[in-house]
């Protein structure tokens, strides 16, 4: 696989996940104090490093590549459907666009009603959960290809660093990130790779070898755009 594609996809996906985590960590920092927020973040990151450090090599060592291709392909396909249909719902007006300012305000309101332990748990859970999604994407993109792992991990780390530095400088939620457009792209990429890999694992002979992936991407883009247009028209008629 082209390393730029792996790095780029994990970069966009990770940036989105880290933006959501950063919104919650910022809310905790402002209401319960930065010590709680940063300790919870550090603890969650430590758990993540241990989890991925154990999970990644274990997968590569003990599971045959073909089985791994099927399992990971299915995983990516499911993940891709989740991201893509959410983006389609948002573009077609069925679901409200994610508003980081509103999410931030709601989080602060919730935190004010609870004590310190709740604040720690909130920041810890947010970083762990969003980080876990990033870890899954990085691991699945890297199976059987060490070179790709470096690019995928690099993309995620750069995204994490960018979001962390921006959060420290801005000290405000990221309300201007085009989240839905990024979610749409990530959904298409995850779904396309998932389809391609699971097919390969199942013994499907793709017509144009690896180039078929490009056709799969184009098909999903065309289908998604048609769905958005159709849904918008249905909404307008109602």
């Amino acid at each position, binding site marked *: 696989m082209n390393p730029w594609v792996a790095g780029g996809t994990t970069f966009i996906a990770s940036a989105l996940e880290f933006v959501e985590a950063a919104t919650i960590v910022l809310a905790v920092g402002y209401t319960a104090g930065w010590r709680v927020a940063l300790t919870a973040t550090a603890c969650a990151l430590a758990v993540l490093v241990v989890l991925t450090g154990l999970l990644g090599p274990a997968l590569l060592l003990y599971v045959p590549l073909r089985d791994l291709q099927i399992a990971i392909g299915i995983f990516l396909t*499911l993940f891709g*459907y989740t991201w893509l249909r959410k983006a389609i719902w948002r573009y077609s007006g069925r679901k409200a666009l994610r508003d980081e300012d509103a999410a931030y305000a709601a989080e602060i309101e919730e935190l004010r009603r609870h004590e310190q332990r709740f604040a720690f748990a909130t920041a810890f859970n947010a970083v762990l959960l969003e980080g*876990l999604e990033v870890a899954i994407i990085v691991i699945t993109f890297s199976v059987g290809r060490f070179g790709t792992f470096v690019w995928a991990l690099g993309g995620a780390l750069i995204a994490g660093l960018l979001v962390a530095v921006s959060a420290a400088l801005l000290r405000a939620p990221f309300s201007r990130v085009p989240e839905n457009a990024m979610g749409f792209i990530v959904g298409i990429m995850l779904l396309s790779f998932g389809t391609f890999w*699971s*097919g390969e694992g199942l*013994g499907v002979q793709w017509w144009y070898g690896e180039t078929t992936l490009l056709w799969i991407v184009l*098909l999903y883009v065309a289908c998604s755009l048609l*769905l958005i247009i159709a849904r918008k028209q249905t909404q307008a008629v109602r």
Partner: protein
Amino acid sequence: MRNAYKLIAGNSVVTPIGIAIAIILAMTLRGLLGQWVGAVYVAVLLCTLVAATMEPVQ
């Protein structure tokens, strides 16, 4: 368990069923259709996408 399902499949009922149908078809028709099985596989997954967007908004 429920949270894990929400994280991975977004609480969708349609997507796991669609993927299962695509896999079963690919495995059974592989010998019969040759290279065309790829087209069937992608077509089923595309239909799953269409069906998934028709589910209630989560």
